[in-house]
């Protein structure tokens, strides 16, 4: 392919991805019954924590982050982005069952663009969630010593987390094509959360969960957020967070494209 043809193809695929992301966002907003829980459930948890019911911060070995809300908001963001990813999978399964997905497949677009459109739409939802949750956390007393840069890095990590979750949701939706199965996956979001140091530092997880958390990429993303928010390498590594986030996005998107190709061959 010549350089000109390649540039033209990339521009076309860029327009396709943008159009599909716009559509994903628009439809998600109109299907509020699925999207709202991904904003409300994490906020509810944050509110419970803010009401002072947790004495976790008093535990020996708990890092000093000012307020427990400040520590836990990274887990709240993670919860929201995982739910947003699952919602993206549900929407895709709905497209498959309703036949709209065939319309996308019969258009001259790269299979990867179909996945990336959905992932980009979910990343934007992840950004909106992170902005909302961080704002609420600040309002109820969190103080982030990492400042604006730390907040910006956390929002980027949230976008990566939402993208990876959307890639995973898309993979399952494409493999199963079942809307009802996708709707029953909500409990697994909590399994992923509790096998990562979302609400407690890794040192305070029980030995089994701590072992699992080592191989759960979400661990590095959530710790990366904390390290950025508090500008503290003791809480985690921002670089490890980005590496785990980017790696998860690439892996899940590749799995989704593979699942899509298998679906056409099956």
């Amino acid at each position, binding site marked *: 392919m010549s350089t000109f043809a390649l540039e033209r193809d990339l521009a076309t695929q860029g327009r396709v991805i943008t159009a599909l992301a716009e559509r994903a966002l628009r439809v998600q907003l109109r299907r509020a019954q699925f999207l709202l829980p991904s904003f409300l459930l994490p906020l509810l948890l944050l509110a419970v924590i803010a009401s002072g019911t947790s004495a976790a911060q008093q535990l020996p070995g708990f890092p000093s982050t000012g307020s427990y809300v400040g520590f836990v908001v990274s887990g709240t963001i993670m919860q929201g982005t995982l739910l947003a990813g699952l919602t993206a999978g549900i929407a895709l399964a709905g497209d498959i069952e309703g036949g709209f997905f065939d*319309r996308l497949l019969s258009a001259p677009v790269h299979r990867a663009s179909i996945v990336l459109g959905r992932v980009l739409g979910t990343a934007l939802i992840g950004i909106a969630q992170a902005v909302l949750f961080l704002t609420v956390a600040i309002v109820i007393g969190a103080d982030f010593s990492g400042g604006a840069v730390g907040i910006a890095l956390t929002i980027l990590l949230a976008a990566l987390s939402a993208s990876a979750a959307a890639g995973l949701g898309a993979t399952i939706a494409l493999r199963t094509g079942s809307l009802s199965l996708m709707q029953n996956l909500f409990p697994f979001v909590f399994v992923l959360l509790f096998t990562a140091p979302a609400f407690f530092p890794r040192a305070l997880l029980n030995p089994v969960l701590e072992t699992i958390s080592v191989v759960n990429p979400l661990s590095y993303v959530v710790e990366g957020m904390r390290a950025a928010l508090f500008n503290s390498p003791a809480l985690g590594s921002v670089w490890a967070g980005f590496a785990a986030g980017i790696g998860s996005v690439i892996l899940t998107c590749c799995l989704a494209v593979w699942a899509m190709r298998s679906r056409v061959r099956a």
Partner: protein
Amino acid sequence: MVSGVSSPKKIDCEQDAAIVVEGLERIYPGGLRAVDGVDLAVASGEIYGFLGPNGAGKSTTVRILTTLLRPTGGRASVAGYDVVEQASQVRRSIGVALQEAALDPLMTGRELLQLQGALHGLRRAESKLRAEELLVRVDLVPASDRLLNTYSGGMRRRLDLAMALVHRPSVLFLDEPTTGLDPVSRTSLWTELRSLNDEGTTIFLTTQYLEEAEQLADRVGIIDHGKIVAEGTPQELGRLVGEPGLYVKLIDQTQSDRARELLTVHGAVSDRAAGGLTIRTGLGARAIAPIVRTLDEAQIEVDAVEVEEPTLDDVFLAVTGHRAEEAAEDDPA
């Protein structure tokens, strides 16, 4: 197989063909042979009707030709491109309106058309302009900003057709485009399809209705259990059944038994479940006068006599030896 020999747009050579299918096969995991060695060719500018009952292999064939499914055997090309090796070029050349008008109910007609434009590489401004043109063409301007879940079946079908036309395809695939539509919507869609064909678009149409194929198609292929069992013009296929039968409705239904006795001299007589008699004489409409005369002489009053045109079921029975519904029950593909 019955071959169409008097096709109005007969293919002289493969270069003229918009669609060429040779020995096409599709075996699903589990062993179900949905398409079993289909051969067909459709000329550029032709309307080809693909008939068969549910589960006969129509939709699987269309899914292969539109690159949504890979064949497990044989080959097919559309607009000169191989459906497996050159799938992307095939997708650029075709418009597709699949069964049940698969449209997102949470989008508006205009949004869907603009999205379709983007999927086919149109820039935003071009896409908006093309959407406006097509909304006018399919008479959906007043409803264009309403969500799809407020559209009627006919409106959804018209929008589905408009979406298939966004990029001005040379070949259009329509999978049962009028199933479930009322007669007015069906006629309106037929008019639009004829107009598209007049502009040069090749149309591959699957349907369960012989009437639809007769109204639209230059040639028709009938598929049963994954194989083409007959092919020809609608007239040629109709002739397979022989001359049409006659339906005779009596004013006094209690005279049916006597009428049946008298009419056996003209041909085979059978009762209709809804009342009245069907007579197959082999003479078609020419048998009306002698039949009425026989009944009149016996002082049996006739309410109506109608010529019964052969249906898909009649053609199906003639070429396969079984009825279409039986085939559908046997084969869930």
